[in-house]
C-alpha cells in the first residue's frame, strides 16, 4: 500500500446515520476473493432495487466517480469485516468524512489507506448543505488535517498515529519485524513468570 497525504476529488453525501458494516457489504458477498474486486458490492442492498437493478437515485449510482463520501454519525459501526473497507476502496473511495466512526472500521480503514476523517456536527451540517445531492470538489490534507471546499476550510480530527500510518503507507508487519528482539524477550519473560498462559499440549479428549 502506498501512502498519501493530499487528495482532491469529487465528494458526495450519504445522508444516513449508523451506516453499519452489514450495509457497506452484505454478508453473502464475503466469500469472494479480493482479487475479484469488491467495488460492486458497496452498499449493495441500498443501491439496488428488490430485483437487483440499480436504484438510479442512490448517491453512489448517480456519481460513480466520487472518491470522497460524507456520512453521518457512527459510520461503519458493527462488525470487524474488513470487506466493508475493501468495498469502499475498490469502488474508488479515498476518504469518508463523518462525525463518528465504528472503532474497528476506522482501524481497518487506515490499514487500507482509507482516511476516516472526523468532523464536528456543525461542520458536517455545512458540508451537507454545500453538497446537497450533487457532487462537489473537495481537497483533503492529512498533514494539516484540513478539508478544503471552495474558499472554506474545515478541520478534521485523526490521531497522529493514524495520520502517520496513512502518509507513510508502511505495512505494520515490516515495522514489527524490527522489534523481534523485544518481542522474544517479552515472550521469554511471560513464559517464565506466568507459565500457565501457554496452554499445555492437549490431552486426549
Amino acid at each position, binding site marked *: 500500500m502506498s501512502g498519501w497525504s493530499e487528495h482532491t476529488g469529487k465528494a458526495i453525501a450519504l445522508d444516513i446515520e*449508523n451506516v*453499519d458494516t452489514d450495509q457497506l457489504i452484505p*454478508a453473502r458477498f464475503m466469500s469472494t476473493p*479480493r482479487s475479484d474486486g469488491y467495488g460492486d458490492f458497496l452498499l449493495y442492498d441500498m443501491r439496488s432495487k428488490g430485483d437487483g437493478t440499480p436504484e438510479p437515485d442512490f448517491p453512489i449510482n448517480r456519481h460513480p466517480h466520487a472518491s470522497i463520501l460524507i456520512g453521518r454519525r457512527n459510520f461503519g459501526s458493527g*462488525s470487524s*469485516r*474488513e470487506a466493508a473497507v475493501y468495498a469502499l476502496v475498490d469502488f474508488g473511495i479515498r476518504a469518508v468524512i463523518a462525525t463518528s466512526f465504528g472503532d474497528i472500521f476506522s482501524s481497518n480503514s487506515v*490499514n487500507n489507506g482509507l482516511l476516516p476523517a472526523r468532523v464536528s456536527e456543525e461542520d458536517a451540517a455545512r458540508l451537507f448543505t454545500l453538497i446537497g445531492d450533487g457532487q462537489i470538489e473537495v481537497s483533503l490534507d492529512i498533514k494539516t488535517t484540513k478539508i478544503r471546499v471552495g474558499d472554506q476550510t474545515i478541520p478534521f480530527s485523526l490521531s497522529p498515529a493514524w495520520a502517520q500510518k496513512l502518509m507513510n503507507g508502511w505495512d505494520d508487519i515490516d515495522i514489527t519485524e524490527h522489534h523481534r528482539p523485544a518481542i522474544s524477550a517479552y*515472550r521469554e519473560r511471560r513464559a517464565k513468570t506466568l507459565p500457565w498462559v501457554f496452554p499445555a499440549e*492437549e490431552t486426549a479428549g
Partner: protein
Amino acid sequence: MMTLLDKLWGAHEIMTGEDGRSLLWVDRHLVHEGSHHAFAKLAARGARVAEPRLTFGVVDHYAPTRGLAATPAIARMIETLERNAAEHDVTCFGLKDRRQGIVHVVGPEQGLTLPGLLINCGDSHTSTHGAFGALAFGIGATEVAHVLATQTIWQCKPKAMRINVTGQLALGVGAKDLALAWIAKLGTGGAQGHAVEYTGDAVRGMSMEGRMTLCNLSIEGGARFGMIAPDDTTFNYIKGRRYAPKGAAFDEAMGYWNTLRSDDGAIFDREVTIEAADIAPIVTWGTSPEDAAPVTENVPSPSDASEAEAERIHAAIDYMGLTPGKPLTEVQIDQVFIGSCTNGRIEDLRAAASVLAGRRAKVPGLVSPGSQEIKAQAEAEGLDRVFVEAGLDWVGAGCSMCVAMNGDSVASGKRCASTTNRNFRGRQGKGARTHLMSPAMVAAAAVTGHLTDVRPLLQGRDAA
C-alpha cells in the same frame, strides 16, 4: 491507582512506538472462516504463523446446521479454513470435532479464555471474552495477518469507562435486557473509543453466561472492549476445562487473577450508573441495537422526535413494517431464532425452555446451540425435547441465522424474534426484519405469536 484496563494493558505492552501506539503481546488468537483474507496476506509474504500453539481455528460462521453445506461456496469457506490451519500446524475445531461451535462460546468452554490474557479474533464480538477479566477485542483482516505473523498487535490504548449496575435485576430480566437498556440510553456510538468495565452488584450476581452476554454486546454500544474483574464465579467456571491450568498451576494463576481488578479510587474517563431494578424486558423495534425499548411501550412516533432523529426513526419503522404508536406487544411475528454467541449458551437454552415447557409455539423457529458440547448437554437435560415438542427445530451448532452466511436465513419481509445481537437491515437475510430480545422473551413471542412480556408466562415456573 490503576483501572483493570491499565493493568491488562501494562501487562501486555512490549513497547511503545514513536507514534504513540503500543505493541501488545497476544496470548490467544482465534481464527474462523473469515480469516481467509489474512491467510492469503500471509501467503503473499511467504510468512508462517508465528505461534501455532497460541492460535486456534473454529468453524462457525459458515457451519451447516442441518448436515451438509448449503452451497459449494459455503463448503469451500470451511475447507479453506481447515486447510490453512493444517498447513500452519494450528489446531482447528472443524465440523467433525466435538469441540466445534461459535468461536466466542468455544474459547471459554475449552478453557482457552482465561483472566489476564490478551485475546484477539477477527470478529467484533471478541469483547465477549472480557467477561473473564481478559483484554479481548475484535480486529480486521490486516490485523489478523499481523497477529498470525508476529503474535503481536499495534493498538492505541482506549479510554476507560465504567458502567456500574447497582441493585439486582428482576425476575425475567437478564443480561440481554441490561445490555440493550444501556445501549438504548447511550446510543450505539455511546462507548466509542472506550473500554467498558462492568461493575456493581447486579454484575457480581451474574453467572459467567450472563457476563458473557453483557460483554458480547459492548460492541453494539460502540466499545471494542468489555470487561469484568474475575471473581469466584469466574474461577469456578474455569476449573477443570480442557486447556485451563490444572492443580498447582491453577492455584498459582489464581494468585495473579485475584489482582485483576480496578483499584479503589481508580479514575475512569467516563462513568455511568444504572439501577438494575429499573430495567424491564426489552425488545428492539428498529434497525440498530439502540432502537430498543421496554416491551410494555409503543413503537415510537417520528413526530415526537427531533428533526434529525425523526427521519431515521421513520426509515427504520418503514423498513420494519411497523406503525408509529402501536403497542410493541401487538407486533405479530413470523418466526423465532434462539442461538448465537450472545445467547446460545446452556443457560440461555434453559431460560427459553422454562417458558416453552408444556406449551406450543404459534410460529416456526430454529434453536441452534452455541457449540456441540452445549448441544450434547442440552440433550442430556432433555431441553431438545422441550423445543421439539413446542414445534421448533433443534439444529446443529454455529452462527446460523445470526448472520445468515450458512444458508439459514429469514426471508425478505418476514419478522423474526431473535436472541442475536444485530438488527441491522438485511442482517438475517435480505429484507429480513429482526427484533432482538432475550431467550426467555423469544420463547414468549413464540408461544403467543407476537412480541410479549415474558414475566406473566413465568408465573409458577422455575425461571432458569
